Every structure is written in structure tokens, then in C-alpha cells.
């Protein structure tokens, strides 16, 4: 199966992006980490090809340790490709840039900054943003993620879900074209998760960003994504890319009744089952 093909769809949906001009273009990407404990080289990902189109919400699904974060970090410019290349708008990525913002799996909030100050962090080092009315923008972003009233709280005073929303607001004020989100709902309990998923959909729709969103959860991948990229491990590479044709807004309850949802879900299960079984008995 070749990567970056659109399955179950030949006619682009209305409003779907032009397949000939990807915003992010990952080609033949490989990352090796060398010098682990005993100088052992780890091939994290290999031969990854993936295109992400402007305005698209792409979810990336895969078992633990398959290299999802590594791939995203090369797009973000904080991990260097050892092979192949990542281009954004045709320009090779050589480091972080103001066009890309990251929402980190572990939030990565500064414990010494209040919510407002953490959000401001997203823009304070960018000359092009500094001249504008920073306070107003920060306030707006905080409102957008529903944290009004918590501006002066410290991260440790917030629940995991709230901290993640601070991370989201921080990414938003940076005004990137691309949002890279690494399992942002990984640490949130299932009930809160549903709520946050809805909010995320709303915010992204409101701002029109291109999103690459990593997740462990099949449901989440389907419910959020315009397309789902499935990773396989050893070494990590893209196994398949699927188009999700469910109408929006989607909720877990409404989707569960849709046969297309059930079919997609079963297909993804089958794809991942072997990997999951391996992962369960493998030393991390």
C-alpha cells in the first residue's frame, strides 16, 4: 500500500484542499537517534512520505513508540532529519519557525509563569507580533479556550485538561499557519476528553489552521480528522492514509450509529491489532 493515497474517495469533497499543492510535504524522511545508553543507534522512523494540505486536519494514529512524535518534531524543526526532507510551502525545514506552533503532550508550560504569562510566551519572542496589542490578544486567546478567570493561576493549580488548553492558547497567539499537536488529550480522562474534543473542533474551525494531530485513540483519530495517517512500527513509517467522510460536527455518540464510522473503526483496528499485541509484550 503506498502512502499518501486517498482511499475510498476519488472526488475531492467540497472545501477539501487541492491535492497537488501540499502545505507540508514529508518525503522519504528518516531519523536516527545515535548514542543511546550504550551508543546504540535507534532508527526511529524510516521512509516516511506524507503530505498535509492547507486547511486540513490530519490525525496521526499509531502504537506507542512507533515514531509519531519524532516525525512531528522534524516538522517543528526541533529534531533534525537524518535522511529525506520536510518542506513547508516548498521550503526545506531547517529549524523552528513562526509558521509552526506545537502543543506538547506534556503541556510544557513554564511553572513559574501564570496562565496569562504562559500564553504570552507564544508571542513575546516574535518581533512581528510584539508590536501589536499583546494583552488584548492574550486575553482573547484565553477566552477562546475557555479559561477566563484563570489568568493569574499557576499551572500547578490547574487540572490536566486546563493546562492543555493553556498550551493551545499559547500556540494560537503565535499565529502559526500550522498547529502541531502531540497527543494533547492523552492525559485527560475519557469523560473530560469528549468535552475537550468538541472545543478543539470549534476552535480550529474558528481559526482555520492546518493541523497535524497525534493520537493513540482510534475514536479520536476518526472523530477529529479529515484524514487519518496510520503509523506502523519497527521502524516507524506510514502504513496507510484514510479519508474520513463523516459529517461535522461529530460526536462519539452520534458517530457510533453511522455505519461508515463503524467500518472505518474496524479497518483501523485490524491495521493496528498486530502492532498492539507486540507492544504489549515488548520492553519499552
Amino acid at each position, binding site marked *: 500500500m503506498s502512502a499518501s493515497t486517498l482511499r475510498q474517495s476519488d472526488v475531492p469533497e467540497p472545501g477539501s484542499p487541492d491535492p497537488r499543492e501540499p502545505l507540508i510535504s514529508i518525503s522519504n524522511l528518516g531519523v536516527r537517534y545515535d548514542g*543511546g545508553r550504550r*551508543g546504540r543507534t535507534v532508527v526511529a522512523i524510516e521512509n516516511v512520505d506524507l503530505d498535509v494540505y492547507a486547511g486540513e486536519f490530519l490525525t496521526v494514529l499509531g502504537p506507542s513508540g512507533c515514531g509519531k512524535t519524532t516525525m512531528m518534531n522534524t516538522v517543528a524543526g526541533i529534531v533534525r532529519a537524518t535522511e529525506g526532507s520536510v518542506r513547508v510551502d516548498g521550503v526545506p525545514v*531547517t529549524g523552528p519557525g513562526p509558521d509552526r506552533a506545537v502543543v506538547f503532550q506534556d503541556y510544557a508550560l513554564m511553572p513559574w509563569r501564570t496562565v496569562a504569562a504562559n500564553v504570552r510566551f507564544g508571542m513575546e519572542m516574535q518581533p512581528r507580533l510584539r508590536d501589536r496589542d499583546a494583552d488584548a490578544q492574550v486575553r482573547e486567546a484565553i477566552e477562546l479556550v475557555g479559561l477566563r478567570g484563570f489568568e493569574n493561576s499557576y499551572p500547578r493549580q490547574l487540572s490536566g485538561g486546563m493546562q492543555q488548553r493553556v498550551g493551545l492558547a499559547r500556540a494560537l497567539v503565535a499565529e502559526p499557519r500550522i498547529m502541531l499537536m502531540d497527543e494533547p488529550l492523552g492525559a485527560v480522562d475519557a469523560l473530560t476528553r469528549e468535552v475537550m474534543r468538541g472545543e478543539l473542533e470549534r476552535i480550529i474551525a474558528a481559526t482555520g489552521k492546518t493541523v497535524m494531530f497525534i493520537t493513540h485513540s482510534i475514536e479520536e483519530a476518526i472523530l477529529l480528522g479529515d484524514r487519518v495517517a496510520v503509523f506502523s512500527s519497527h521502524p516507524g513509517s506510514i502504513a496507510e492514509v484514510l479519508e474520513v467522510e463523516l459529517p461535522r460536527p461529530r460526536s462519539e455518540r452520534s458517530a457510533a450509529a453511522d455505519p461508515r464510522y463503524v467500518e472505518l473503526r474496524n479497518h483501523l483496528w485490524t491495521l493496528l491489532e498486530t502492532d498492539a499485541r507486540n507492544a504489549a509484550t515488548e520492553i519499552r
Partner: protein
Amino acid sequence: MDPDGRTIMTKARRTNRALPADAKWTAILGIAVVGIVAFWQLAVTRLELVPAAFLPPPTAVAAAFTELVTRAEFWSALLFSLQNLAIGLVAAVVVGVVAGLAVGWFPVLHFTVAPFLWLLYSTPKVALAPLFILVLGLGNSSKIALVFLLAVFPILLNTMEGVETVSPSLVRAGRVFGFHGVALGAKIILPSTLPFSLAGIQRGAALGFTGAVLGEFLGGAGGLGHMLERAAFDFRMDEALAIVLVMVVIANGLLLAISGARRRWAPWYSGSVSAVS
């Protein structure tokens, strides 16, 4: 791009860094040490930045050192000091760890005793020397006592702080599976605290050695401290520095041995523990 920022990142991620690179760093460190020693030699003999009487050049120290190690007197003094150090350290470890566990564990002790321990810790023990002689005499017991006194506080205070980091869920697990009292202490609290205790023991050992030397300065007629005192008294700085060199080697040897022990006995602990000094 920020290649340096990248180094920070990867380095921070893996605190237990790779081994093969070690050889390279050891070589560079060796070169640095040789450089320092060479500069020392030049500074004294050529540039005359400091009179040789106060800081003899490395060649003189080395000569004194080779002369020193051929003397039987030196070896018996070394043995004498090491014996006191060993006894005092063992006592400090036992008392420091047990008392540290107790003070860390029981809130009543923690609130009543801990401030006193900090107070005692910051008292310059040197100033209480006559009291020592009076209570413990000039035999081995006063030297052992000084080793003990200097070593016990870092061990005790580190252990105490370590106890506070013991995961409550491990304690709960212990209780669920029937452990309480001393068994709980031995099977859960002690092993959990061990990395902290070892960090304290590391610092305590170095300080304890200073204690042994100090005790020999206080009085008596044996040990490296006594030899050092005699050398310093005649202003034979080359020999004095050679003895200090031996002391540094011993202190660092202890440090290395204990961090080896730490890797061996507490391999599960990879983070850094900052020692109370």
C-alpha cells in the same frame, strides 16, 4: 536554527550520558590537568607569581610524595587515619540513616528535632575542640567522634529529606501487603531513601576525612593529620602538599567508591540528587 540549543536538549534528556564518549572526555580532562600542572610549575619557577616556599612547584611536591611513600611512618599514619575514618564513618552511616529515617518519617520528631539538627549542623565544630578533648580525650575516640560528627549531619539530613520523597503509594502498597513498623521501614522506606542517603554518605565521607585530620590536629601522636601538622610546623610545604594530595586522593576515592556503590545498589535511581553539604 540553534544547534547549541539542540545540545542542551539532548543532553538534558539523557543525564546518564553515553559511555564511549567518556574516553574522549577523560583524555581532554587529562590534558586540562596536565595543563594546569604545567602552569603551576611555570608560575612558581619562572613567572614567580607565588614564592616557592608557599606553593612548591609540582616537581617538588612529586619528589616529596615519592619520598613520603617510601617511609614506613607514612603508611602506619595512613592506616591509623583510615581506621578511625572507617569506624567513625560506619557509626555515622548507621546513626545518620536510622535517625534520618526516624526524623523524616515521624512528624513529631520532624517538627521537634529537625530544626535542632540544622542548628547543630551549622555550628562550627572546630570551635568546640577543647570540649571534645575534655569529654573524649585525645585517644582514638575523640578522632572517631570528630569523624562521626562531621559525617553524620550530611547523611542524616539527606536521609531525612529523602524520606519526604518516598512515594506514598509505595507505603500504601506495603501496608496493604501486611508490612508495618520496622518491616515497613526496612522494606520500603529504606530502599526508597537509599539514593539520597548515598548522596549524603558521599559528602559525609569527604567531610569525615577532614574530621579525622582535624582530630589528629587536636592532639595525639599518630595519623596523617599529625604528619601534616609536623610538616606545616616546619614549613615544609612540599611534604605538606604531598600529604594533602594523599588526602584528596582518599576523599575522591571515597567519592568514586560511593558513587559506584550507588550505581550498583540503587541502579533504579538515575536522576540527580543534590546533596546537603
